[in-house]
């Protein structure tokens, strides 16, 4: 056997680009970039006993938002009752009614300490918020009928969340002089404690059937 030095020819790498392009296009096609987004909610745990299904709430602490079978919305607290025929009215764009979010904000804040709005309790929220009166036991109850459309329900949910988000934004402006999104996690927690989302999604009721 003759020992001759064999020259290994250099590997041609020009087709590598084609192969990797092929891979790239495959991944582009089979993958989706969009992140799922939605309105986050927390459900109450299932009732353990029969009598646990309802909780007594004082009338003044309760704000009922009812979406009926014709997708009309009723917003009622002890102070006033308002009907909204469609989503545009809900947002206060047409019809000249006070928007749902503004009514909820008024309800949650109760700046005038009205007897028709939730009771105020002094609570300590640490510096720089300090001791402020808040409506700690208010409840926004969203109720729906069996034939309410999901779209109308989500529109109402959205307005309620918007009211809370605006309250938190205003709180951040007031106490930290910046927007809510730029606060640290600790500060956001403080604001969340100040304006907790107290939304109840009631058990279904069949209003039309009785």
């Amino acid at each position, binding site marked *: 056997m003759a020992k001759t030095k064999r020259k290994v020819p250099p590997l041609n*790498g*020009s087709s*590598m*680009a084609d*192969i*990797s*392009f092929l*891979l*790239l296009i495959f*991944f*582009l096609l*089979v*993958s*989706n*970039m969009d*992140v*799922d*987004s*939605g*309105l*986050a*909610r*927390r*459900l*109450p*745990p*299932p009732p353990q006993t029969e009598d646990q299904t309802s909780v007594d709430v004082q009338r003044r602490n309760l704000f009922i938002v009812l*979406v009926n079978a014709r997708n009309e919305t009723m917003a009622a607290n002890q102070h006033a009752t308002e009907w909204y025929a469609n*989503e545009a009215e809900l947002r206060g764009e047409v019809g000249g009614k006070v928007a749902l979010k503004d009514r909820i904000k008024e309800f949650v804040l109760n700046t005038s300490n009205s007897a028709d709005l939730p009771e105020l309790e002094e609570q300590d929220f640490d510096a720089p918020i300090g001791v402020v009166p808040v409506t700690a036991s208010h409840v926004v109850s969203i109720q*729906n*009928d*069996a*034939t*309410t*459309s*999901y*779209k109308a*329900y*989500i*529109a109402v*949910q*959205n307005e309620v*969340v*918007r009211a809370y*988000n605006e309250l938190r934004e205003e709180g951040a402006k007031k106490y930290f002089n910046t927007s809510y999104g730029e606060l640290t996690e600790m500060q956001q927690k403080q604001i969340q404690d100040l304006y907790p989302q107290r939304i109840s*999604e009631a*058990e*279904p009721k069949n209003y039309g059937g009785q």
Partner: protein
Amino acid sequence: MGKFNKSGKREVPEMSTTSMPDIVFAILFFFMVTTTMRSETLLVKVTVPHASEVQKLEKKSLVTYINIGPPADVKLGTGTQMQLNDRFAQVGEIQDYIAQEKASMNEADQPLMTVSIKADEDTRMQYITDVKQALRQAYALKISYSARKGEN
């Protein structure tokens, strides 16, 4: 100065493409990391409603999906159907489904499990309410109503 004379033919050297695979691989890895595979084919038609206050669902591994809407195949009618995994299911099967999904999760992550309800905007609330009650029974209490960002 002789150094700068312009005599002699100048040739533009051929561009080296040896770094092209590296660049393409970099893009490839970017896409592989940032995207997720399309996991299931939808058997129901879902047009999720619009909402302006949506939050992004972080950590895909913690999210379980429930798709609700009319069947994509028109032969199956227009009644509301629910899809769990790759097949149609009844509301009563949710508990088993949730238990199964929970079991496949890391134990530390189990309390953080979020159920994303992807429901068609024309669905009747009765169906959603039934699903919600079933989720309560299954102790899947963190839910998210899937919605697209934007005003209507």
